């Protein structure tokens, strides 16, 4: 029997509330399966299971109590190892329910916003026939499926209530007004609460739970810790992106809009490969010593529209080709913005990148996220006069900065790292 413990949820995150279970006793679980949703002060996270077996007992019920990291939350019976050595098929019991918002195998995977909408409207994607190109599930398909005859919720909702079907905007408005969606009379199709329904509702007396304020407190703790403990040094350099962006434009001309690669993916790949060459910026400072990481899990700072910031990881970023990097980045940003990150993504970034160029900033000076030991800041791409073979030319140029922990590296190593990123970006076809 295995006790499944509440996993680590990121730096300075030592507790969480259990929002809901996505499995029941008797369900077979496999490695990487998402089995629960928890909420820290900073984010709602999907908890992955790292054991194979059958859920014997759920030790904790969803509720408002804080649970410490390491608390046993479920008991899993390891599968009797059958006489099948070698590659083992993922165990799935016949009665196992599909996870909400998971696409069925063998069909094009719906885009993250579609999966998010399906989750919001409580629509099981595996039961849908897509009407989009190549059988892709579209927004209209999801909305049409959110009908009263649809199957009931499979998840165990918070405190036993049914999860209310509501459009994302309705959910946003209800959150802001402090309204409970289950109190709102639904007039939308299929019993869905629309934005107009929420606006028609009188504002209640109770104070809204302020997710953003909680996130602010968590950021305050982490950043104060960083500035108190980490002796930062800062380096900056200009990188000419003429070659890289020209190359990218040619690549994108042949791609459909859904497969298009943003410059950010190129910059992240170059950073990940740079860490391979300068590994002493990739890892953690724990117990007064540097622990290098053998994997490169690149954290990406993602701003949340309502305010606040999370920096989840793209796992093994150095091993992804550009198409994969873009797909992972898009998925990660979309899930971060809909508060649907996974526990492992929050717990294990080995170095983080912040890309503030999108917001018009030319130069960023990042504050390292402890226990990481470095962070890269990328600014806006600016058309700049540069000298090319002794003559002036106008090229797109980006300002790349590095904040690094002086306990681990010196400016010389940091400088080599930025120079490596520059060199890699001059040969975009090799990324």
């Amino acid at each position: 029997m295995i006790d499944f413990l509440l996993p680590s949820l990121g730096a300075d995150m030592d507790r969480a509330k259990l929002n809901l279970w996505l499995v029941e006793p008797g369900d077979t679980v496999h490695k990487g399966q998402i089995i629960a949703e928890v909420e820290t002060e900073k984010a709602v996270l999907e908890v992955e299971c790292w054991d194979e077996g059958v859920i014997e007992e759920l030790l904790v019920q969803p509720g408002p109590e804080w649970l410490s990291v390491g608390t046993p939350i479920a008991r899993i019976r390891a599968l009797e190892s059958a006489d099948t050595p070698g590659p083992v098929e993922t165990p799935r019991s016949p009665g196992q329910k599909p996870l909400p918002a998971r696409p069925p195998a063998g069909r094009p995977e719906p885009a993250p916003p579609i999966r998010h909408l399906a989750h919001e409207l409580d629509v099981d994607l595996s039961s849908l026939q897509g009407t989009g190109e190549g059988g892709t599930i579209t927004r209209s398909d999801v909305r049409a499926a959110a009908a009263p005859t649809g199957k009931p919720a499979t998840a165990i909702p918070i405190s036993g209530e049914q999860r209310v079907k509501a459009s994302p905007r309705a959910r946003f408005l209800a959150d802001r007004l402090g309204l409970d969606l289950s109190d709102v009379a639904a007039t939308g199709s299929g019993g869905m609460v629309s934005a107009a329904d929420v606006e028609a509702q009188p504002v209640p007396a109770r104070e809204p739970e302020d997710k953003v304020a909680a996130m602010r407190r968590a950021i305050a703790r982490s950043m104060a810790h960083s500035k108190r403990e980490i002796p930062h040094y800062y380096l900056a350099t200009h990188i000419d992106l003429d070659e890289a962006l020209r190359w990218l434009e040619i690549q994108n001309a042949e791609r459909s809009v859904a497969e298009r690669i943003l410059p950010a993916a190129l910059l992240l790949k170059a950073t990940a490969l740079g860490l391979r060459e300068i590994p002493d910026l990739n890892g953690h400072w724990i117990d007064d010593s540097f622990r290098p990481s053998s994997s490169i899990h690149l954290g990406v700072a993602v701003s949340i529209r309502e305010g606040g910031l999370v920096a989840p990881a793209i796992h093994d970023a150095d091993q992804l080709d550009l198409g994969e990097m873009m797909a992972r980045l898009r998925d990660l940003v979309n899930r971060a913005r809909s508060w649907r990150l996974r526990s492992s993504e929050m717990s294990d970034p080995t170095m983080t990148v912040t890309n503030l160029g999108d917001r018009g900033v030319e130069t960023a000076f990042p504050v390292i996220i402890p226990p990481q030991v470095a962070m890269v800041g990328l600014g806006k791409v600016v058309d700049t006069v540069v000298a090319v073979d002794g003559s002036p030319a106008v090229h797109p140029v980006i300002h790349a900065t590095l904040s690094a922990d002086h306990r681990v590296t010196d400016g010389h190593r940091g400088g080599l790292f930025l120079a490596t990123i520059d060199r890699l970006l001059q040969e975009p076809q090799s990324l």
Partner: protein
Amino acid sequence: MTPEQARRVIFEVLADIAPEVDESTVDDHHDLTEQLDLDSMDYLNWMVGINEETGVDIPQRDVSEFLTIAGAVAYLVTHSPEPAGATTGSPGGLAAG
């Protein structure tokens, strides 16, 4: 597709990306990313959503047409595969109106 249909799809997709956006306050002729604080990922998701809903392809060279709501409406009206059900006239003519 009529301009009204195009507009409905455009805002429906936008509401999933930026739920706080109030349609009545959006200026149709002003840069959308600036106006609504969309980053490049939001902007890409918006175009992908429109493509999925309408079937209209948006090649890289035409991305700049989508900088404003007015530009996006005109593009969809002109490039949608079939004219609107009730109208058999030129979709380009609708865009001008």
